[in-house]
């Protein structure tokens, strides 16, 4: 992408815009929203006349993702509706856009803890993807179904979906998605009881290089947190001797989640850190982690809709 863009004079304006859109998406996934929105502003000025729809679509996607992470569910739903309008306008033509809109709809419902509705949307989406042979989307939707069941507390129902998604990933060489599915599988095993901690930890360590090397901030943070959970649940693990491993994982997770403003996962990371420091008897560090935990919980419960300048467009 970078080297293609370096020779933008040789390509058409719409191709250049597409390259820039891809770059901004990568920026959001790997470096956080602050830099992504800044880059988006530059791109909007750069491509004023042509390719407006691409930039607009990108803006919607970024805002939706950001709202989900910050816990702004009403805003997320609103953006999702806008996305649905865009998708319905291109009936039968752009399956990617329809799939993306439906996927985000299900994820919004999941974030709002409306598990049954989320599962219904995901199932309907899976039928459509299966019908049109959208293999990558098939694996993604199966993984989403596994996450819905995991979050609703039905781990034993989520396992078959995670394994099915894993099977798709293996067939089509989708390594990063496979790592994500393996991570979800590990979480499902862990929620079935601490006796499965070793199995879950093995799964995570098997995909750790993939996630750390090529995964985004969210995926990496989730991997770090689940690894820490596995260590803490493992009866063979001695917290006093090896606490640096757990604290290091959680510290990396919290750093990256701040870039994403992902309050839910960040609060979880700080909660675990506080627990570890409490066991070790390091009260000062414990209070520090507890304060960060509380900060993120408050941010999650009181979304600040007013001071977001980009939202005022709608």
């Amino acid at each position, binding site marked *: 992408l*970078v*080297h293609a*863009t*370096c*020779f*933008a*004079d040789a390509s058409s304006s719409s191709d250049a815009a597409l390259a*820039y859109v891809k*770059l*901004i998406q*990568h*920026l959001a996934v*790997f*470096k956080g929203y602050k*830099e992504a929105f*800044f*880059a988006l502003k*530059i*791109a909007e000025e750069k491509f004023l006349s042509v390719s407006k729809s691409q930039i607009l679509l990108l803006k919607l996607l970024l805002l939706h993702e950001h709202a989900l992470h910050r816990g702004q569910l009403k805003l997320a739903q609103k953006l999702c509706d806008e996305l649905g309008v865009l998708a319905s306008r291109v009936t039968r033509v752009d399956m990617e856009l329809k799939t993306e809109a439906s996927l985000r709809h299900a994820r919004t419902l999941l974030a709002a803890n409306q598990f049954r509705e989320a599962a219904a949307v995901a199932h309907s989406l899976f039928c459509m993807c299966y019908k049109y042979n959208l293999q990558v989307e098939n694996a993604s939707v199966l993984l989403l179904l596994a996450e819905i069941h995991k979050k609703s507390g039905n781990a034993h129902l989520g396992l078959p979906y995670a394994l099915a998604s894993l099977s798709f990933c293996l067939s089509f*060489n989708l*390594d990063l998605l496979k790592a994500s599915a393996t991570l979800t599988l590990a979480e499902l095993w862990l929620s079935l009881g601490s006796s499965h901690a*070793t199995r879950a*930890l*093995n799964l995570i*360590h*098997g995909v*750790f*290089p*993939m*996630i*750390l*090397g*090529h995964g985004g901030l969210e995926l*990496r943070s989730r991997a770090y947190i689940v690894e820490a959970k596995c260590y803490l649940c*493992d009866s*063979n*693990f001695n917290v006093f001797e090896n606490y*640096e*491993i757990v604290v*290091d*994982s959680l510290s*990396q997770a919290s750093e990256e989640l701040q870039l994403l403003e992902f309050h839910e996962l960040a609060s979880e990371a700080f909660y675990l850190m506080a627990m570890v420091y409490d066991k070790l008897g390091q009260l000062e560090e414990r209070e520090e982690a507890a304060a960060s935990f509380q900060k993120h919980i408050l941010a999650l419960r009181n979304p600040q809709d007013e001071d977001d300048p980009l939202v005022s467009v709608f």
Partner: protein
Amino acid sequence: METDESSRVIPFQLQFDKPLASQIKIAEWNPEKDLLAMVTDDSKILLHRFNWQRLWTITPGRCITSLCWRPDGKAIAVGLDDGTLSLHDVENGKLLRSLKSHCAAIICLNWEEESQLITDDFGHTSKYEDRTSRFFPPAPRVPRMPGLVSGDNGFMDDSEDSFQELSNSSHQRFNILCSADKDGNICFSIFGIFPIGKVNIHNLTFPTFCDGSEMSNGVSNALIHKVALSKDLCRLIVTCSGDLVKVGDDLGEIQMVGNNEHGLHCLALNTAIFWNRKNELHQVAQQASNIEDLTEVVRTSLSVMCRQWSDAMNTFQEKFRSLSTLIINHGLDSSPQEEFLSLLGGARTSPPVHQFLVNTLGEVGVKRISKVLSGAGKELQRIVLDHLQPAVEVIGFRIGELRGLSRWRARYHGIGLDESLINNATEKAGMLLVQVERFMRVLSSVVQQYSNFFNWLLKCIKLLMSEPSDQLLPYNSELVIVFLKFLYEQDPVKQLLEVSETEYEVEIDLETMQRVRELVQFGGFADTEYLRRTLVKEFQLMELSFKEAFEMPFTTISRKILCEDILPLFPLPSLPKSSSSMWIPTSVSYYEDPSRASVPPYSCQNQFIDYISFQVPDECFSDIVNCICIVRGFMHDSDCLKKGYSSLEAVLLCVPVDYQCVDLSLYKDSQIVLLLNKATNTSESAGDGCMMILQVSDLPYVSMSRSACIDVWRLPELKDSVAYLNIGDEKSRTIRHSVIAPLAVSASRGVACVFAATKRALVYILEEDEDEVSDVE
């Protein structure tokens, strides 16, 4: 008497007794196959089958100082006297790789493989997959210089196949090649190709407690004799000669421990980092060694392209330089470009141009030069597409994998995989990828403009010769102007390819520079000056960043290899530094400790007992003559001493009075093979040899004290408990030759090869006996 004689059998079945062209100075059996590698006096390496069929011979051209096999038997490591370590293929002897970790002659080599699949610290097994082969075709090879006769390079001619073989290290189990040189450096490399550690024996110190205070001690004037890694890769035993010294609190203060302290010592080095971080080191070594292979592909590609393009441009410039001469000879003051521009503008042809086009160059000349340049352009494009670009892409992919590993700080920070250094290397690889893309565009443009220029020249010549020009290729007048302005006296392709001392800067237009700076906001490279660098310069920077990134694991691991213990064995007469040391038969081996079989495998316990056997020179002690010593339990000792007892044991074996020990070798199931020569004072059987096997685990060992003071030689303690060997009591066989070192024994195959002073090789099967009536001797 006669009945006893007829029922006796002779041990060690003799298979072959063959003459040799040269005397042999090193011989090693392949650990997996019935193959014997030998180094001759004139530094050739021969590979023979068990049936003495010769497979190949190679001549490295330098003095060979050491040799050992890779544990899987598929490659052989050769140490040379200039410090080069070369790996050769077992099938045909061709050179696979050369390493230059040493600056002095490599005295000894030892290659050890992990003995069993061991889980990591927490009992988890990390299954690592090299994903590269799923996304990329097989790695590109070094481009061959076209037109080169295949015989010119000798073994290097087939070297392009070696990358494919060496890159298959994912099929190898984790192994460490340990090499030691004359200057006391000990180097470790994973798979024999990825340097991972280095220590110098003169810098090693080990603490001892003497008179209630702690002292640091070291060895000076050290000369390494042998190195041996344990099968669990946790310990390294080094036998060396040197002086024991005290390292005082002041840095430079060195004090001799006592009088006449030059002797043979055993050092135990802790190399447990190789076991503890086996999985991590395996993965890093695999990626890094592949990256180094591909870096070599890139370097060679750039070099070959530069040479080919220079040749083509010389052809062009050589021909067109004469136009300048013609212009001067005609008394004109213009440049060739101006003359060509006039010609293009329709002015009357000036006399020097006319003469140049019609007589000097001619139609044939234009076509020839055009073909040369066009061919060079195509060849460069082929090299980029088939070699350079795939190599850079795979390098970028592999460094991305290493970046993922480097972010796993709990596992990889401890072995020195630094995330910021790997990130820097990743960025440099990305920049090089952009540079390759730009080079292709520049090359395409340049080749096109040259072609256009020559088409125009051809038409001009046709016109001047008053010949029909309808069938000529079309040309673009504007391109000719651009060519004359920018390319006639400048060579952008050469500038990108040439290694120059002066810092040449590529000109970048303002629009491109603005776009590059803007891309930083979109996740582009923070270094916005990279497009000003040449392709070769960018490659050098990438190479440097990779070297820095891989230097960190090397430094980190080196720092963790420490000396644990020392065992002074016997004094040696002090020799002048420049002369070569006396050769002492020595063998070090590790056998499984049956009493510890139930120890959990993931615990780093010493599961192997070390056996150190050597000949005691007669000059060392007045009361110990013609003896062999076997020491065991040296490595355990440092652990046992903390529990209050010593595991160190030793035994002295007195060689029969008529014989002298020539060489010895430890063998399977705790046995030792001795090679003896009969003393020549007996006239009727002068020059006979003897080979003997005995069980070392059943000998009457004496527990050795571990005095806190290390200025005491250990062996005199044993002189009262010498065990005497008799030829008739042990499994032995007379050899009707005077025998010499080396003795080559293969524990895995049960064979031995003995060399006679009369340039003969005798191959014995140690596990089988031979009927006396069929004795061919």
